[in-house]
C-alpha cells in the first residue's frame, strides 16, 4: 500500500516537474525574446508574377517600422521577409518564421490560397497573423480564426460598392473572371446583386489563370454586345487583358469595371491602354487621405522617388496595427497581442476603422475610382469618385452582420 502510494506520489511529482519544466521552457523563450530584438515576420512574394505587388507591400510594412523609429516596447525591431510563391511554400515559410526566427507575429499574405494555408500554421503555433491582401470571404467567414486579422475588404463587400455603379452605366452585363476561388467569389457575389440593381447577365467567361492571349475572349465580348463588363482578373492576367482590349480598339467602346485591382496593374500597361471603374482599398491622390497617410506618401516619395501604391498602404496599415497593439499590450505574448488587436482602432479619419472582434475583419470603406480621360502624370491614373460608404453605420452595414458572415471563432 505504502509502496503504491509512493509510486503514485513520485508519478505526481514527476508530472509536476514536467509541467514546471514546460512552463519554464515557455518562459525561457519569452525571456530570450525580452532581451533581444523583437522579430516580426513578413510573407510577401519575391519572385514570379506577384513579385511587384510583394515589393510594394514589403515597402509599406518596412516604412511603418521606420516611422516607429525601428523600435517597439523600446526594443529594436528585426524584420524577417520570406517569399509567397504558392500556398505550399508560403505555409512552409510561415512555419520557418515560427521555428527558426521565433517571430512574435507575421504580417503578409496577398493571395487567398496562400493566406488560408498560412492560417493553419498561425492557429497551430498560436502566432498572430495580419493578412494584408487575400479577399476571399471564407478567411473571415467559415474559416475564420482567433489568430488571423485581415485588412482587405471581402469580395462581396467590394462588389456591393461596385454594382450600383455598374447598373448606372448599363443593364447588360458580361462577366470575365479568373477561374479560381477569387474569380468565382466575384461571380457569385455579383450574380446575387444583379437583380437588386436591375441588371442582367448576357455572357460569362471564366478564364484560366496565366492566360496570355485574350483576343478570342474579346471577340466573344464584341459579339455579345454588352453595355458593361464586370471583370475578375488579377495581376498579369488583368494587365494582358487591358493591353489587348486597347489593341483591339475596345477601350472607349464598352466600359470595364472591377474590384481588387492595384495601381501597378495600370502602371504596368501604361496610360494608353488603361481604362475602367474600380474599387480599391486606397489611393494616394485622394483629398480625403489622413495626415498619417500624407506622411506615408511623403516618406515613400522621399525614399523611392515615386508615390506609393495601394499595396504599400495595406502593408503599412497591417504593420502599424500590429506595432500599436504590441505597444498597447506592453507584451509580445501572442494572446495579449490578439486581445489588443481586437481593441485596436484608428481614429485619424472622418470616422474610426477597426478590426471587428467577431470575425477580425477591418471595417473600413474602400474608394471607387475611375481612370482619367487624360493621364498626364506617370503615376496618377485615377479620379476618386467617392467612398463605398460615407458613415460609420453605413460601413458596418456593408460588412454584414455576424449571422451573414458565418464566423464562429473558437476562444484562444
Amino acid at each position, binding site marked *: 500500500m505504502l509502496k503504491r502510494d509512493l509510486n503514485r506520489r513520485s508519478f505526481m511529482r514527476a508530472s509536476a516537474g514536467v509541467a514546471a519544466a514546460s512552463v519554464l521552457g515557455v518562459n525561457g523563450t519569452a525571456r530570450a525574446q525580452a532581451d533581444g530584438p523583437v522579430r516580426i515576420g513578413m510573407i510577401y512574394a519575391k*519572385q*514570379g*508574377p506577384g*513579385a*511587384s505587388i*510583394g*515589393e510594394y507591400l514589403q515597402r509599406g510594412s518596412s516604412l511603418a517600422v521606420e516611422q516607429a523609429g525601428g523600435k517597439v516596447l523600446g526594443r529594436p525591431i528585426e524584420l524577417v521577409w520570406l517569399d509567397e510563391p504558392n500556398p505550399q511554400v508560403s505555409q512552409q515559410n510561415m512555419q520557418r518564421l515560427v521555428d527558426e526566427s521565433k517571430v512574435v507575429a507575421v504580417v503578409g499574405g496577398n493571395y487567398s490560397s496562400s493566406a488560408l494555408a498560412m492560417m493553419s500554421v498561425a492557429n497551430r503555433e498560436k502566432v498572430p497573423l495580419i493578412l494584408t491582401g487575400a479577399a476571399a470571404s471564407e478567411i473571415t467567414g467559415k474559416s475564420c480564426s482567433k489568430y488571423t486579422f485581415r485588412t482587405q475588404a471581402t469580395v462581396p463587400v467590394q462588389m456591393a460598392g461596385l454594382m450600383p455603379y455598374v447598373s448606372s452605366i448599363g443593364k447588360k452585363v458580361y462577366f470575365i473572371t479568373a*477561374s479560381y476561388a477569387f474569380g468565382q467569389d466575384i461571380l457569385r457575389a455579383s450574380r446575387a446583386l444583379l437583380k437588386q440593381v436591375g441588371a442582367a447577365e448576357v455572357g460569362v*467567361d*471564366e*478564364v*484560366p489563370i*496565366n*492566360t*496570355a*492571349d485574350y*483576343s*478570342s*475572349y474579346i*471577340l*466573344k465580348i*464584341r*459579339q455579345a454586345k454588352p453595355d458593361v463588363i464586370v471583370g475578375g482578373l488579377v495581376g*498579369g492576367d488583368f*494587365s*494582358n487583358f487591358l*493591353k*489587348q482590349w*486597347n*489593341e*483591339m*480598339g475596345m477601350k472607349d467602346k464598352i466600359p470595364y469595371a472591377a474590384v481588387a485591382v492595384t495601381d*501597378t496593374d495600370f*502602371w*504596368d*500597361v*501604361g*496610360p*494608353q*491602354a488603361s481604362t475602367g471603374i474600380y474599387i480599391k482599398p486606397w489611393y494616394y491622390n485622394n483629398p480625403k487621405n489622413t495626415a498619417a497617410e500624407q506622411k506615408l506618401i511623403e516618406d515613400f516619395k522621399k525614399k523611392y522617388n515615386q508615390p506609393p501604391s495601394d499595396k504599400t498602404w495595406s502593408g503599412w496599415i497591417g504593420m502599424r496595427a500590429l506595432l500599436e497593439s504590441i505597444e498597447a499590450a506592453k507584451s509580445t505574448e501572442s494572446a495579449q497581442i490578439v486581445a489588443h488587436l481586437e481593441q485596436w482602432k484608428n481614429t485619424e479619419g472622418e470616422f474610426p476603422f477597426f478590426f471587428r472582434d467577431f470575425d477580425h475583419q477591418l471595417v473600413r470603406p474602400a474608394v471607387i475610382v475611375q481612370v482619367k480621360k487624360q493621364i498626364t502624370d506617370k503615376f496618377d491614373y485615377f479620379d476618386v469618385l467617392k467612398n463605398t460608404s460615407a458613415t460609420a453605420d453605413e460601413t458596418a452595414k456593408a460588412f454584414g452582420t455576424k449571422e451573414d458572415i458565418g464566423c464562429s471563432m473558437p476562444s484562444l
Partner: protein
Amino acid sequence: MLDTLVSQAANGLVLGFIYVLIAVGLSITFGLLGVINFAHGAFFALGAYVAWQLFQLFGWSAVILAPPLVGLIGMAVEVTIIRRLYGKEPLLSLIVTFALALLIEAVIRYVWGADGKPFNPPPAFAGIVEAGPLLITRYRVAVLGATTATLLGLWGFLAFTPYGRILRAGSRDPEMVELLGINLPRVLTAVFGLGCMLAAIAGVLAAPLWTVSPSMAANAVMPAFVIVAIGGLGSFRGAVVAGLAVGIVTSLTIQFWPEAAAASMYALMFAIMLLRPRGLFGERWERFE
C-alpha cells in the same frame, strides 16, 4: 457566326505563329545540341526587355536590334555554361538550364525592377482591319508578316546555304563533321545564339500584346514545349504545323467551350502522343536512340 469563326481562326493563327517562333528555337537547340533548354523562355523575356530599353533610348527603329543582341548574350551563355552539358546525361542539362532561367529572371528584376513596363504597338500598326467577315488588328497582321518572313528565312538558311548544311550534318553525325575539318564547337555556339535570337524575336513581337514583366515567359513556354512534343523533337516543319494547330484549337475552344480552353492543347498533345509517340514529323534519330 461565320465572321466570328473566321476572326477567331485568324487570331488563333497569330498566337500560334508566336508560339511557333519560340518552339522552333527550342527545337533547333535540342536537335543540334541535344540540350533541352528550360531557359528558353527567359531569353524570350529578355528580348522584350531589351526591345523596351532600345525603344526608350532610340525609338522604334532600334527595336530591331534586340534579337541579335539577345543572340549574342545567348552565345556568351553557351561558351560559359551550356558547352559543359554536351554529351552529359539529360537530367543535368534540365537542372542547369532551369537554374539559368531563374537567374536570368532575377537579373531582369534586378536591372529593370519587378514592375511591368508599358509597351504598346507602334502607332503605324494601331487600329483594326475589317475585311469581309474577318476582324483582326493591324498589329496582329504585322506579327503574322514578321513571323512568316522569319520562318521562311530560317528555312531557306537551313535548307539551301552551306552553313545550314553543316548544321544539319552536325546534328546527325558530329564526329564526321569534325573529321571534315569543321570547327564544330564554334558552330554549336552559333546555333545556341540562333535559338536565343528566335526566342527574342517572339519576345519583341509579343511585348506590345502581353505585359512586359520579368516572369512574362511563364505563359509562353508551356505551349512551346507542347508544340515541340506534338510536332516532333527537332523538327522544324513539325513545330510550324503543331504551332498553328495549337493556336487555332485554343481560340476555337474559347469560342465554343471556354471551360476547356486551358486543357485543349494538352488534349491535342495527348491524342497525337497516343497515335504517334514521336510527334507528327518526329524522325528516328540514331543519336538519341
